[in-house]
């Protein structure tokens, strides 16, 4: 099941620079998208979300962009901080459904 795909398994970025995480999806019924952050031995923590009626949502250092025609979304973190080092999951849901479909995750390492 590859309905949600994160093609970059890892990303390394210098502190203070921008981190860009990408996510692609195939199911055109998805209409709500979320990003979760996960530290080792913890559960996923909600970060930011976007509805399909928008193309951008911003919350502090985190911005999510949605390109529906390309079935692509991205998460921008700026500036990146060492505490942002974690695994980031993209997830999606349909209007009628009640479950999240997750991508495989991208491990981000922010170097001081």
């Amino acid at each position, binding site marked *: 099941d590859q309905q949600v795909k994160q093609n970059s398994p890892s990303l390394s970025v210098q502190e203070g620079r921008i981190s860009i995480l990408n996510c692609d999806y195939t199911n055109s019924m998805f209409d*709500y998208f979320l990003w979760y952050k996960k530290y080792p031995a913890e559960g996923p923590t909600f970060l930011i979300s976007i509805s399909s009626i928008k193309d951008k949502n911003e919350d502090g250092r985190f911005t999510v962009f949605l390109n529906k025609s390309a079935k692509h979304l991205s998460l921008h973190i700026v500036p990146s901080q060492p505490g942002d080092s974690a695994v980031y999951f993209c997830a999606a849901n349909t209007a009628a459904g*009640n479950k999240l479909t997750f*991508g495989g995750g991208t491990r981000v390492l922010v170097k001081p």
Partner: protein
Amino acid sequence: EPEVTQTPSHQVTQMGQEVILRCVPISNHLYFYWYRQILGQKVEFLVSFYNNEISEKSEIFDDQFSVERPDGSNFTLKIRSTKLEDSAMYFCASSVYRTGGTNTEAFFGQGTRLTVV
């Protein structure tokens, strides 16, 4: 800040044994979920639960699995006869509303690592 709590954090069981994983969702949440993550793989949806019944389940959630909300606070996942391939991190989650749409994000517990030997 309210959080979803899961017990135990780690459970080791012999193949064929029954296990019960426990969760206390956030108190004002109405929707409850179980997800699992096999080591090195994606987080996968198992089941969602609302109004004391299953609202959606995946193909993984076969007859060996069951969920229950035995009282007003706990939400449990039972695996009747564990198999080696059930070894995974199991996450409980809850949300105020059905996931989808503004302010309907699911909040996850810290997980229970189930090891079947």
